[in-house]
């Protein structure tokens, strides 16, 4: 099999993994080496599905020994199998990187024989890159659940970020759909990586030249829609992952039915893209806006409103906290206004040091009033003609979505997002 064929197969097999960011590490270039890393990450292209391409995202091998029913690579699936050699992987990474196609490598793999053997192969490839090829760019590696601790440590010292995919948001679903994996299997490496990072921080404080262990932190992915968990249980899980395991990112992946299975949604189910989008928005609210999962959803209303984003939804249910006066409100209160993002709040705080803000002034700060107008006052006044009444507001907020639906009657689910929403999903300015 030629290299192009292998690359196609192993990319196709890796594409469902969404964690393709190159963020979390800032590292300068070094004489004699190739590459650097930028903390905010760099997108090198956007695929036909609109997702950012930052890393060479491939599996080392798709010849998997396991049989997870939601996965294309499962043993019982009849499909061409391929494995890249460490040399091929290293060459591809280096040559793509030199041409500025990528920020680095995202290496995952199906289970080759067993987890330890798989991890050893990955280590061999990454060591070749780091040591022989002097590659100083970004590397994200997957830790295969069930791998020996020593190997995880070895891998962690070579890469920037590691992730263990939880995939299914509850142990029951795991049991049902991924019979070779258990919750303990997944959480153990996660715990180990967390402790490793903590110990390493302490060591670095004492001795600056200590080798770095997973400096970009760890991440995970949850599949949305393959199993019956609610949005509430998903974001509660994310919240505890951020707190308990100090994860850097939780990614959400709308389940795309790749095969039929007794315990799976039928093959013609559309991937729940809007739901995935709402979860990302909520995730931003947890990480940057000071919200807790409990504020956004509850046992009683366990799923997000599809018509408006989670922040609008929260605001509509908490009208007693509004309107907020932009000239005096503290940052935390500004951040809770629908339509004012992290950047917007900062700009308001800077600008009001020297001038009193009115609605025209907010526009000059690039604040989009479409949403925000219902929830703020400038100098004690609301924008003329607006009422502080939830039904009135909801109508105002919803009309855009419904107008778009009427314009694009039989289009895909995704077309109900407008450009602004896309940008927001990239920048997290909600």
């Amino acid at each position, binding site marked *: 099999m030629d290299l192009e064929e292998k690359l196609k197969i192993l990319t196709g097999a890796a594409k469902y993994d969404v964690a393709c960011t190159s963020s979390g590490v800032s590292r300068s270039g070094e004489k004699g080496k190739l590459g650097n890393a930028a903390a905010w990450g*760099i997108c090198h292209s956007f695929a036909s599905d609109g997702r950012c391409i930052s890393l060479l995202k491939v599996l080392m091998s798709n010849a998997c020994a396991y049989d997870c029913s939601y996965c294309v690579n499962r043993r019982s699936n009849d499909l061409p199998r391929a494995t890249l050699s460490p040399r091929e992987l290293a060459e591809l990474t280096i040559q793509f990187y030199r041409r500025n196609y990528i920020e680095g490598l995202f290496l995952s793999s199906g289970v080759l024989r067993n987890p330890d053997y798989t991890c050893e192969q990955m280590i061999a490839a990454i060591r070749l890159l780091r040591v022989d090829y002097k590659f100083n760019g970004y590397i994200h590696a997957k830790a295969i659940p069930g791998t020996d601790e020593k190997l995880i440590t070895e891998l962690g010292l070579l890469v920037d970020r590691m992730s263990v995919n939880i995939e299914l948001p509850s142990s029951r679903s795991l049991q049902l759909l991924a019979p070779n994996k258990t919750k303990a299997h997944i959480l153990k490496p996660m715990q180990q990586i967390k402790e490793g990072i903590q110990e390493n921080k302490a060591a670095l404080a004492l001795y600056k030249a200590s080798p770095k262990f997973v400096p970009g932190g760890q991440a995970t992915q949850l599949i949305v829609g393959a199993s019956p968990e609610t949005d509430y249980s998903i974001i509660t899980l994310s919240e505890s992952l951020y707190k308990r395991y100090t994860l850097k990112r939780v990614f959400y992946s709308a389940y*795309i039915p790749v095969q039929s299975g007794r315990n799976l949604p039928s093959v013609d189910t559309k991937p729940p893209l809007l739901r995935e989008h709402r979860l990302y928005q909520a995730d931003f609210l947890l990480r940057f806006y000071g919200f807790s999962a409990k504020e956004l959803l509850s046992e009683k209303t366990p799923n997000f409103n599809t018509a408006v984003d989670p922040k609008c939804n929260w605001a509509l249910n908490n009208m007693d906290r509004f309107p907020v006066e932009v000239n005096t409100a503290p940052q935390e209160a500004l951040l809770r206004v629908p339509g004012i993002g992290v950047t917007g709040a900062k700009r308001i705080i800077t600008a009001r040091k020297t001038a009193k803000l009115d609605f025209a002034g907010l526009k000059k700060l690039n604040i989009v009033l479409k949403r925000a107008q219902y929830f703020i006052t400038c100098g004690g006044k609301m924008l003329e003609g607006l009422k502080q009444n939830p039904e009135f507001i909801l109508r105002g907020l919803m009309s855009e979505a419904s107008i778009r639906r009427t314009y694009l009657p039989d289009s895909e689910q995704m077309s109900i997002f407008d450009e602004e929403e*896309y940008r927001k999903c990239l920048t997290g300015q909600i």
Partner: protein
Amino acid sequence: MPYRTDIAYLYDGSFEGLMCCVFESYYKKELPELIFTQEEAQSTLYDIREIESDRGKAARVKSAVKNKISAEALDFVQKAFFTILPRKERIILDFLRKGFKTGGVILDMLTDDTVSVLSKAVSHLGKESALYRGFVRFSEIGGVMVSVIEPKNFVLPLMMDHFCDRYPEEIFVIYDKTHSTMLLGEKGKARLGYVENFEPGEANIGEKAFRRLWQSFYEAIGIQERYNPQCQMSHMPKRYRSQMTEFQERETAPLPLFPEPEARLPGK
């Protein structure tokens, strides 16, 4: 004495030259209606005065900006100068005049029209240069990594440090077709220079093979069930794609083979 406003300044198009216009404006107590370059060939009813570039004067203005306003303000006007904002020279002059009155706080006055207009232009420049950090595509031609871009703003000065840091062992060229300017990086250092025309040479088979592999990767990574050209377009507008490998005709060059020989160093 009121300022004279019925005059236009013609300058050489350099940042130094613009700083000399600022000097002239203070020295002669004038607020020119227009500050422009030969290429723009503006028509004006007023007298035109040619302002000569003078390093000494420019340096004096720059250090005044630094000391009386702030170092950030100097950086800000330098960036504003790289943007495509129409009449930017005149607006920069306004900004500096205000800044000399208010001091460093000028950069916080985001609702001031002059500051707001310049900030938007600078953030457009910042976004474009950030996108190009990802979208630049190099080809290895005769041992040099070569690329061409067609930006709106003059982004090269904002990209220099990043690429020098990234490729300390490569010789690389980024040619800005819009502004006929070449960035040449070597041993982690870079220079900018005016180059009228530049055509990268013909790529060899080895180069084409990696293009082909990248094109295959690009095709394979998209998820069909999520096909969404609208979203793709909003992140990566069409104009960026003209020089990107994945949007060029499919390469068919023979593929490379990597047996397991001894280690090879990058670029060798």
